[in-house]
């Protein structure tokens, strides 16, 4: 049955623009659904509307087929994990986990059992008598998870739960959360601003920007078929190159020209005009050239060991990022010739995707061959 959002809109002031408008989505039972977007896009607001902490201005929210608008949070039977963990500082770990269960007037024996199980699941059994201030950030985060686990509701909402942790811990907690979600069969709605979290954890991703849903798809679906400029730029590091290009010749053509050396061939012809081509950094190539030849100048080189990121300035003053696998030695100020390997996206004047050139699927096929 899952969760259904129909035209969800949030307006704080009658006279002002809505902070979220017309959000439609269907979240299946047992899936990990990530809501991602830059700060201020309304993703936390959406989550709080689902939780029932803030009222829905317009639209219908259904949980398991039941309309939930106006139902109080506790009757929606869900749990929530906050960015700040929201632990009670004056209670020890076990009491923190038990707090919500006591508030729901559960039988003491049942509470003890659930608290023990939940703490065991997050490996905090030996810390049960500690106060939150005696725990590390990662442990506090796990207490918050244990609280959600103990509640035994099948829907869990998480609001940027990992953004206060350091990078390594974040990677570990990412897989721990994913594992827990699968083991417990939770329907997990996960809010984040981090596209890596969205890519690595989600079954489905909703991209929010500018008060609107930009795209809902699987992580690879989003990476391989970005609906518009914003989505293309938001997913993938380094960022995709968006270059202005025009069709070759006078009429409709199957070739887009960025500059003399940088061409993109298309499967289908496009009407004459100017378009934006999106090319992932790993789908671009460069060749060093002597003297003043080529079409770009290297301005920055980042060697990561297994790959090298080269930033170059095209002669028409547009910056491009190129990723080469392995270690490439290029000098700063070196003249290079930048070309496209093939796969590319073409966006129209309204920034929406209108054509794909061999997408990214070619990559995956190449690997399996």
């Amino acid at each position, binding site marked *: 049955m899952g969760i259904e959002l129909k035209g969800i809109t949030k307006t704080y002031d009658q006279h002002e623009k809505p902070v979220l408008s017309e959000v439609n989505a269907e979240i299946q039972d047992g899936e990990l659904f990530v809501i991602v977007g830059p700060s201020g896009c309304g993703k936390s607001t959406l989550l709080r509307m689902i939780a029932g902490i803030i009222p829905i201005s317009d639209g219908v929210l259904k949980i398991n087929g039941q309309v939930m608008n106006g139902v109080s949070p506790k009757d929606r039977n869900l749990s929530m994990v906050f960015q700040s963990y929201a632990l009670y500082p*004056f209670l020890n770990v076990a009491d923190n986990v038990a707090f919500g269960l006591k508030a729901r007037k559960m039988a003491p024996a049942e509470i003890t059992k659930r608290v023990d199980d939940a703490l065991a699941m997050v490996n905090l059994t030996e810390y049960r008598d500690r106060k939150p201030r005696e725990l590390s950030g990662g442990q506090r985060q796990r207490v918050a998870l244990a609280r959600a686990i103990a509640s035994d509701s099948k829907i869990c909402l998480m609001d940027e739960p990992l953004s206060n942790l350091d990078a390594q811990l974040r990677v570990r907690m990412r897989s721990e959360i994913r594992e827990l979600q699968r083991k417990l069969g939770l329907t997990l709605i996960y809010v984040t601003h981090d596209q890596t979290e969205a890519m690595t954890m989600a079954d489905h991703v909703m991209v929010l920007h500018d008060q609107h849903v930009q795209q809902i798809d699987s992580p690879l679906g989003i990476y391989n078929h970005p609906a518009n400029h914003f989505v293309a730029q938001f997913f993938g590091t380094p960022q995709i190159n968006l270059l202005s290009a025009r069709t070759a010749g006078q009429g409709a053509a199957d070739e887009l020209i960025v500059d003399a050396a940088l061409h993109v061939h298309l499967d289908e012809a496009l009407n004459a005009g100017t378009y934006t081509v999106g090319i992932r950094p790993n789908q671009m190539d460069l060749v060093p050239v002597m003297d003043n030849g080529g079409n770009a100048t290297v301005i920055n080189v980042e060697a990561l060991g297994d790959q090298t990121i080269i930033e170059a300035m095209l002669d028409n003053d547009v910056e491009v990022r190129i990723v080469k696998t392995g270690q490439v030695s290029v000098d700063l100020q070196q003249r290079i010739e930048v070309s496209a390997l093939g796969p590319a996206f073409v966006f129209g004047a309204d920034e929406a995707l209108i054509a794909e050139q061999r997408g990214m699927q070619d990559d995956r096929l190449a690997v399996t061959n």
Partner: protein
Amino acid sequence: MQMDTTVMNQATTKRRIGNFFKYVALIILAFIVIFPFVLGLWTSFLPSMDIAKGSLWGGHLTLHNYVTAFTQTKILRYLLNSLVISTLVMFAHLFFCSLGAYAFVFLDFKYRNLLFYIVLGTMMLPFEAEVIPNFTTVKMLGLLNHYSVMVIPFLTSAFGIFMLRQTFKQIPKDLKEAADVDGLSHWQFYWQVTLPYSKISLFTLAAYSFLGSWNQYLWPMLTTFSDHLRPVQDGLRQLQSEETFNDWGMVQASAAIVVIPTLIVLFFGQHYFKSGLNEGSVK
């Protein structure tokens, strides 16, 4: 190598000299502040004759003044009166101020801020300006010369509401939202989260209210007429004027006795004034 340590030694010497002067200044100031208090305590152990003669350092220390204070005067009664009144006022403050502050922080109602500013505004009025209207009110209520007259007008305090509101505002919003998801009612959130979270401020307010009430002087003097109702501060004044020959040693001893509860409250309260007890709730 040699040069490294030279620079370091110079820095150390400089810091030590700086600290030396800092402590000298602090010791002098501390002495000035504490001297009258020590002198008072000292005289409370001297026979009244010595005090009258002005020979403070004669060396005849005695507990006689304390014995007289307890046996010849009603100081025990005064202490009991003050204890009852101050305790009642303290608990009333804790309860009513926290309820008021909770409403101003966690409930959303019309004119919330305006009402809060009105409450704050009452702090502008000095207590002396309220004495006459308050006196008329309690007189009409028929409360004069009764314990309740020293408690009822002081059941709540604008300062307490203000202070607790500031404290409650520090409670992370996430904690309230988590409680909402757990289905806590306002009363449960107030009792199980807000109060424990604000323990330190509540202790501070308790100490402040207790001492404030303990040191009341003007109001009890105006509204009580019988000796057995007098709180300590008025009792002290009573001791001084009752007798033609002032037994200064005994008065001094009584004053020392009256100060002791204040010191106890501050001593134990100090433990709770330490911050950091709420660390770990949120990152």
